């Protein structure tokens, strides 16, 4: 490890760092704007100026930018040098000549990197007496507010948006002091990661538009460590609330999962929490119904916590419990588990995906289903040819030099999917094939096809240093099996399988019947009562099957926080706390158990689902952790969930709980004064090691799983995360949170070919039959986020997409209406004829009310 000398003191740093990183890694402060741990250095802002000395005898030195200085052994700098200090102050003073007098009305205020750095540089008074430059703003969609006057030209936004996120509709325009960051004309930003601009921008040019409707400063937010509920990747988040209402979500750094960033669905999906059910407490009705029941069936949910699902399984018994997945998902999830346990392929984490150099995507649409996987693959493609730059002695962090050296080179990306996915724009080759043919294609590659694309991919995979195969539960069991065979056939090849929902893998691991079997139990009369846990069954079975279930069941007890078709059909509704008002654990797609903590106490005494289930049965659990302990004792593969986060009796090094509110949280004696003068005691949180009030430890906790926010004296913005990391941009102190539950045992994957073939019913060859495939969209397909106000604006119109060839064969025309008959139900949608879908399929949006019942690829008859 190189040793550098900073202000006369020796520090050890990692190999290949720059001096700014060296300074921050060692816990020292040095102001910066344009550098970002995920984006590297460009030396644009000139703020991290230090005095750099040649050697020990050099007393003169020179001013240099720390971020552009490699941290070689013996590098000698001074941060406190008076001239360097004055230089930095001057840089901020120049930036401030045009910065508007906006802080009171700016949403960035209170967590603004520019405020922090200005204070850190000691610049306090604007001496410049001349006029300020101004700009006009643009409409950028429902997620971001644009306020260009505040810009300090650090170029972070455009570097993030174009270089990292791969967006093309945002750029820098103009010349000299008219530099402008925006779009060519007003319009919604196309990138699925645009929300990160609000975090990446060191000042308030881009701010969260959803939070502006009910704006709260960071110091007033009540925050808790949480996990995103809107897909199966399990990105770490920090939701913030004020007056018991959700205000915004920011990313929580986890070096093994999402790093610094979030997708727009994860960031803006929180607005679903405004539209929850409140109904009479019907627990007595539910208890009576259970007493009189002739057999009870329980259906769990992949969007409910592991604890709630396990509690339901205990209540109804394993033989009467269903994981609540559709037939297709259940089968695919089981296949995935058996592949995982067999160890045929190395299962990668999301962070490891970014290290791959050749990627094969099989049968899924990462952008629609698990957007951060799209982001990770883009990073992999960007970093793959890095060797070229390294050969030229260009360090990885020297962002512009790397871009010039690579000259547009990218990693190799191959895609086989039923429609043109967005990643195709950076793909080396892509083909559109039917879901069944995706598996065939994968087998062609692994079995060494002699020519064609499959053979080319096979050669590239064999040459690759870090090959990777990506597929998902939504691609079906057979594709997962084929993908694992492919990954297994190449030494060192990784496999990444997405899961559609936050806890899909968790419920699949719990096991139980498929939803079909559960319904059969009811319909055959073996049971007459059904308990549904946070699950909309209408989304998971065809409409006639759902109608028949509703007709045949005597009592349907539904626990949910939102109104769905299932709650409307219920005989008894038990409202439960939303995700933001309850604690629990999710198991993400790579079997990482992660705990999330309630941001707010339950509203109006609506308890968490697990405690409702406890009241329905004869259980003595005092908290959700008791359920978790029982689960771990009962099922050893869940033992890791106990280590994923500290328990309720855990205390910080100062022997205190962790405070969810900041030490500056305001309004304590006033916020409830309209209701009561008694100043109610803050709600107690016996369930977790966190307190709902400001009373508790404000320091970074020793356990990274309970970091409620990133804050450090002088660092109010999220850049404070550098104080929580071992090395900036790397692992958190105490390790990245989450524990992977599954390990490879070396057993052969169970492959049931007959079963696999069931998942892809083949069209009988009849001229009017076609594959009907649900396509996940980032906005609209996920059940909770589509209820959000901002996301609701971006839900695409429901249309059925079909290839011109197929359209001609079936006599369908663009703009006409397709009536599709399948599983005894008919849906009708406007037709869009386009070449971007495979021949022989008709693609409809997944999870839209118009397409309920289309749960998996199926065969439909066109009327």
């Amino acid at each position: 490890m190189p040793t550098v000398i900073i202000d006369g003191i020796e520090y050890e740093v990692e190999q290949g760092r720059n001096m700014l990183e060296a300074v921050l890694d060692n816990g020292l402060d040095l102001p910066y704007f344009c550098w970002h741990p995920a984006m590297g250095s460009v030396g644009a802002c000139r703020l991290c100026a230090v005095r750099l000395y040649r050697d020990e005898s050099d007393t003169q030195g020179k001013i240099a930018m720390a971020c552009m200085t490699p941290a070689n052994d013996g590098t000698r700098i001074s941060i406190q040098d008076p001239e360097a200090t004055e230089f930095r102050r001057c840089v901020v003073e120049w930036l401030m000549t045009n910065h508007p007098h906006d802080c009171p009305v700016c949403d960035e205020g209170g967590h603004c990197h520019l405020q922090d750095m200005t204070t850190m540089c000691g610049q306090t008074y604007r001496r410049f007496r001349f006029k300020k430059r101004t700009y006009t703003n643009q409409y950028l969609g429902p997620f971001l507010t644009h306020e260009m006057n505040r810009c300090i030209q650090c170029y972070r936004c455009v570097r993030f948006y174009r270089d990292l996120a791969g967006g093309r509709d945002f750029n820098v325009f103009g010349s000299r002091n008219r530099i402008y960051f925006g779009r060519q004309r007003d319009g919604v930003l196309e990138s699925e990661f645009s929300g990160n601009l609000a975090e990446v921008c060191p000042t308030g040019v881009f701010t969260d538009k959803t939070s502006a409707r009910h704006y709260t400063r960071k110091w007033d937010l009540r925050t808790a460590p949480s996990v995103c509920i809107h897909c199966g990747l399990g990105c770490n988040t920090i939701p913030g609330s004020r007056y018991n209402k959700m205000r915004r979500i920011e990313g929580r750094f986890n070096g093994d999962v999402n790093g610094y960033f979030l997708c727009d669905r994860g960031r803006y999906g929180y607005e679903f929490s405004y539209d929850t059910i409140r109904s009479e407490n019907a627990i007595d009705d539910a208890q009576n119904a259970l007493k009189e029941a002739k057999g009870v069936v329980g259906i769990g949910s992949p969007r409910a916590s592991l604890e709630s699902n396990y509690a339901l399984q205990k209540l109804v018994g394993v033989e009467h419990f269903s994981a609540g997945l559709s037939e297709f998902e259940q089968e695919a999830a089981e296949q995935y588990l058996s592949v995982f346990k067999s160890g045929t392929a190395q299962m990668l984490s999301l962070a490891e995906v970014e290290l791959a150099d050749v990627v094969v995507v099989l049968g899924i649409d990462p952008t629609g289903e698990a957007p951060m996987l799209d982001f990770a693959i883009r990073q992999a493609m960007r970093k793959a040819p890095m060797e070229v730059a390294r050969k030229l002695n260009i360090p990885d962090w020297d962002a512009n030099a790397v871009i010039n050296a690579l000259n547009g080179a990218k990693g190799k990306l191959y895609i086989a999917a039923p429609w043109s996915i967005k990643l195709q724009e950076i793909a080396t080759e892509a083909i559109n094939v039917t879901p069944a043919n995706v598996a065939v294609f994968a087998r062609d590659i692994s079995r060494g096809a002699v020519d064609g694309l499959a053979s080319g991919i096979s050669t590239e995979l064999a040459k690759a240093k870090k090959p990777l195969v990506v597929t998902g539960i939504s691609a079906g069991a057979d594709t997962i099996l084929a993908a694992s065979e492919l990954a297994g056939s190449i030494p060192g090849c990784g496999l990444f399988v997405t899961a559609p929902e936050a806890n899909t893998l968790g419920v699949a691991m719990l096991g139980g019947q498929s939803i079909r079997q559960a319904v059969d139990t009811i319909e055959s009369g073996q049971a007459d009562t059904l308990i549904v846990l946070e699950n909309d069954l209408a989304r998971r079975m065809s409409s006639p099957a759902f109608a028949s279930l509703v007709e045949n069941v005597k009592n349907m007890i539904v626990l949910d926080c939102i109104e769905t078709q299932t709650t409307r059909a219920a005989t008894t509704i038990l409202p439960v706390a939303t995700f933001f008002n309850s604690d629990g654990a999710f198991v993400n797609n790579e079997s990482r158990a992660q705990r999330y903590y309630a941001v707010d106490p339950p509203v109006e005494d609506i308890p968490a689902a697990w405690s409702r289930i406890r009241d329905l049965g004869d259980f003595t659990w005092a908290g959700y952790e008791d359920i978790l302990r029982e689960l771990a004792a009962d099922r050893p593969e869940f033992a890791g969930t106990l280590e994923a986060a500290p328990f309720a009796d855990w205390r910080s090094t100062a022997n205190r709980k962790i405070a969810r509110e900041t030490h500056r949280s305001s309004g304590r004696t006033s916020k409830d004064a309209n209701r009561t003068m008694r100043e109610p005691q803050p709600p107690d949180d016996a369930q977790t090691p966190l307190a709902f009030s400001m009373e508790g430890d404000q320091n970074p906790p020793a356990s990274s799983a309970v970091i409620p926010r990133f804050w450090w004296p002088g660092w109010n913005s999220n850049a404070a995360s550098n104080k929580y990391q071992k090395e900036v941009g790397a692992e958190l102190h105490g390790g990245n949170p989450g524990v992977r539950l599954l390990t490879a045992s070396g057993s052969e994957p169970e492959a049931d070919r007959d079963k696999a073939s069931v998942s892809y019913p083949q069209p009988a060859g009849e001229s009017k039959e076609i594959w009907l495939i649900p396509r996940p969209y980032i906005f609209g397909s996920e059940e909770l986020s589509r209820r959000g106000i901002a996301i609701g604006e971006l839900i695409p119109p429901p249309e059925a997409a079909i290839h011109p060839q197929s359209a001609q064969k079936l006599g369908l025309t663009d703009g006409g209406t397709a009536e599709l008959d399948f599983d005894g139900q008919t849906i009708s949608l406007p037709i869009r004829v386009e070449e971007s879908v495979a021949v022989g399929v008709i693609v409809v949006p997944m999870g839209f009310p118009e397409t309920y019942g289309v749960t998996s690829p199926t065969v439909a008859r066109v009327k």
Partner: protein
Amino acid sequence: MVSILRSMWLMLKHLVVRPVTVRYPEQKAYIPPRWRGRIILSRDPDGCERCVACYLCSAACPADCISLQATEDEHGRRYAEWFRINFSRCIFCGFCEEACPTYAIQLTPDFEMGEYDRSKLVYEKEDLLISGQGKYPGYNFYHHSGVSVKGKPRGGAVDETHPVDIRSLLP
């Protein structure tokens, strides 16, 4: 004996000295304008609310007796959706006035706020908002800030140039 006489003399002397007490409440004492009494929210010279709901007063308040909620109108002007001061907790320190970047919140020379019921000491925005500018006439925050609001277009503030033409190629 001497002390008794001296006491008598003092007492008799006060029969002819003018009393210092005033006949409050009929007669009011002089309160200087910068007295820290009842808190108000003022308006700018255009008659619009000065408060931009920046939360600095509530953050500065040592008694934590100010709470509010920010929102914005269709033209981007920030204002307080609701604003509450619990005067039963207020210590009249004036930190809120000092923290206020827009001269919205001001302390006034009025101390006559006694109530029999504590809940009546909770003042909402309609109780706090006055129709005048208070102690600091003439200041309008939005005429110095870079954001545009109704009546102040982009670049229309004091010390601001017109918005630049980003398509200009002139050096």
